[in-house]
């Protein structure tokens, strides 16, 4: 689990950048993208079944990423405040 957490945190420096996607019509932050692609939408029921049966990567991966996004959202608020100063 520690490995996964370190991996995501090392990606953090770019997380506050605003991305222009698909022609620049919509601007969304990377954190919002991560939050939506990982937390929103269809969850295939089998993932939990398989994970509990012993494939750790799926289960741990999901949890580590979700925890890190939560932490990252906290950091985003701090970063926004810094920018306002």
């Amino acid at each position, binding site marked *: 689990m520690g*490995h*996964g957490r370190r*991996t*995501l945190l090392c*990606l953090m420096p*770019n997380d506050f950048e605003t*991305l222009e*996607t*698909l022609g620049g*019509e*919509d601007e*969304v*932050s*990377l954190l*919002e*993208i*991560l939050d*939506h*692609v*990982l*937390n*929103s*939408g*269809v*969850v*295939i*029921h*089998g*993932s939990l*079944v*398989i994970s509990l049966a012993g*494939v750790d*990567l*799926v289960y741990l*991966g*999901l949890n580590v*990423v979700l925890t890190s996004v*939560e932490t990252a*959202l*906290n950091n985003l*608020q*701090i970063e*926004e*405040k810094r920018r306002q100063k």
Partner: protein
Amino acid sequence: MSRILVYCGFRHAPELALPAVGVNAAPVQVASFGNLNLLWSEAEWPFDPERMQKSAVEFHEVVHQVFKQTAVIPFRLLSVFDDQQAFTAFAAENRQRFMQDLSRLKDFVQMECVIYPRPSQIDRSSGKAYLQQKAVALRSSEGLAQAMQNAIAHLSREVRVREGKNGTRIFVLVERGRENDFRQAVTAVPIPSHLSRRMSGPWPAAEFLSEQVKMPQMDGAAGAK
């Protein structure tokens, strides 16, 4: 090891421009099950954690390109199927429920607003001061969330509110094309000095999917990861 990575489902329409490549530059393919189309590509499994951020953006761009043109049901990035057989079984089992949700949500997008305490205003001088301030912020946040819901009532088909560690998150189902009206209505609501607000959207209406679509049951669950 290669798996089937599914991006999203949408109602078949020949005029839609579909993305050519997805995560890790894999060719995106369309699987049709009656009127339901599912976009998928092959993906190496497990995902390389070093490129997770890039994969997330690539995944998002595939979904977003379709969503810009029509309603979609997004899948989550870390869900994959073992093989075509498991994928096909899943689609056959859930096609009708997917089509019902697509029909219900076809004219709508999801807008979001998060209300959270301003970090610099947090008093950490003592535990008591912190908790007192937190209680005040919570009450204030609830009041602001209600004020925002009132302000957008004429624009919202449905609203869901979730309280989290980071604040109050409001999900609003808004008619496609009225996103700017939503932004203006939210911006017009005054914010107390100790709170902040962040808006985002439009997103696919994932928060408003039926429970059976969000977490579909599968007879062949062992085929999915």
